[in-house]
């Protein structure tokens, strides 16, 4: 997306939780992180991250002032949802009464597994390629909700077994330049950083 020099990556501020880890990771790959508070901020960045902090309702309340602009930006600037940020792209969640962005069919459920929350490193299996540059391997998860037992077809490309069910772990919608990971790339060592790098490279195209 014709960006030369330092890529500005906007991290949407839901007003709760901490985005320090994402800022640190973006700085490490030499991108410039910016906090997005309003529509003008959203228009000024080259890529957008919906972070994984707070709860479904609190995030949607804060996001409501940005949704129209987000829908406009979507498709031109790459958008990456992380953890809760991915969940917000669906119709709704067991975690809250508010509706999600509704970009994808599906519902976010409370996970059932040997242990909830699902905390720690887990294996992501890929069923297709993603231009974000996601590799199969171990990533860091930290969540109690997820899209459970999704269909195995694009834009759903990454999956993780948890207990008896399968969790959607990577969404890759190249047509709309919209991506999501249920795990935290900013906490997943080198493999994670390469996903953030992929986002930055897409913004450069």
């Amino acid at each position, binding site marked *: 997306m014709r960006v030369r020099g330092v890529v500005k990556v906007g991290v949407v501020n839901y007003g709760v939780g901490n985005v*320090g880890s994402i800022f*640190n990771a973006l700085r490490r790959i030499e991108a410039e992180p910016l906090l997005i508070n309003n529509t003008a901020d959203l228009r000024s960045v080259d890529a957008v991250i919906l972070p994984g902090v707070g709860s479904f309702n609190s995030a949607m309340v804060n996001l409501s002032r940005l949704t129209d602009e987000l829908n406009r930006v979507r498709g031109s600037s790459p958008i990456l949802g992380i953890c809760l940020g991915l969940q917000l792209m669906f119709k709704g969640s067991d975690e809250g009464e508010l509706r999600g962005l509704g970009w994808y069919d599906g519902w976010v459920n409370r996970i059932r597994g*040997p*242990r909830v929350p699902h905390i*720690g490193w887990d294996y992501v299996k890929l069923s297709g390629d993603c231009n974000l540059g996601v590799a199969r391997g171990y990533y860091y998860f930290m969540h*109690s909700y997820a899209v459970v037992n999704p269909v195995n077809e694009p834009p759903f490309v990454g999956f993780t077994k948890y207990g008896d069910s399968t969790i959607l772990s990577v969404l890759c919608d190249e047509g709309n330049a919209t991506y999501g990971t249920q795990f935290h790339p900013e906490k997943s060592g080198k493999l994670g950083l390469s996903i953030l790098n992929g986002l930055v490279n897409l913004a450069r195209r």
Partner: protein
Amino acid sequence: MTRPIGLVRRIIPCMDVDADIVVKGVNFEGLRVMGDPVELASRYEEEGADELFLLDITATVQGRSTFLETVRNVAAAVSIPLGVGGGIRGMEDADAAFKAGADKVSINTAAVKDPSIVAKLSREYGSQSVVVAIDTRRINNEWRVFIMGGRRETLLNAVDWARTVEELGAGELLVTSIDADGTRAGYDIELYRRLADAVNIPVIASGGAGEPSHFLEVLKYADAALAASVFHMGVINISILKAYLSELGIRVRI
């Protein structure tokens, strides 16, 4: 009952920090200098540590701001999860730790004094970010909870207390055996076996790691094993440890 074997077990180096220096004691006393927090943290990430813990052992007002600076520096240097604990008395301290770059906070004494803090923290930050640390010592065949850095005994039974904080919304437990701490004689396996039966949230075992087989034993019951001096002093290399565990059937990230 053992823990579900399908889950990936974590290896967590823990750094006790005093005035921006990593130190380590034996049975919570007699501190020795171990090194620079950022250098150690980077080395551990490189070796394959799954997560890091930073504990503030000064807990004075002045020491506090120095410690938060350490948290900021370490958080900026690594891209694996960072837990922060020691001296977190309430929401403000937790907030400061998260702002400095912590992904989780561990709370100990303050939770015993006012258990409602666990529920408040978990509502605000999500239970996955709230670790309750329990320091315990075996007394008359039960595990008694100690607070104030192991200095004060309480009437609480550690297994009961673990259940209570799980109900309040703790996302994880970091359970240290004071008896085993720094001895390198092995984890208190019986303690973690009991806890595995008692709670459904992840349990991090701490205290007593001396050799690779100690990790193998405890990870049958605990979800993660934390250790300090064996890593700081180079007695155990994390990548070699994980290869050993993997060979013997423990699922780890390699």
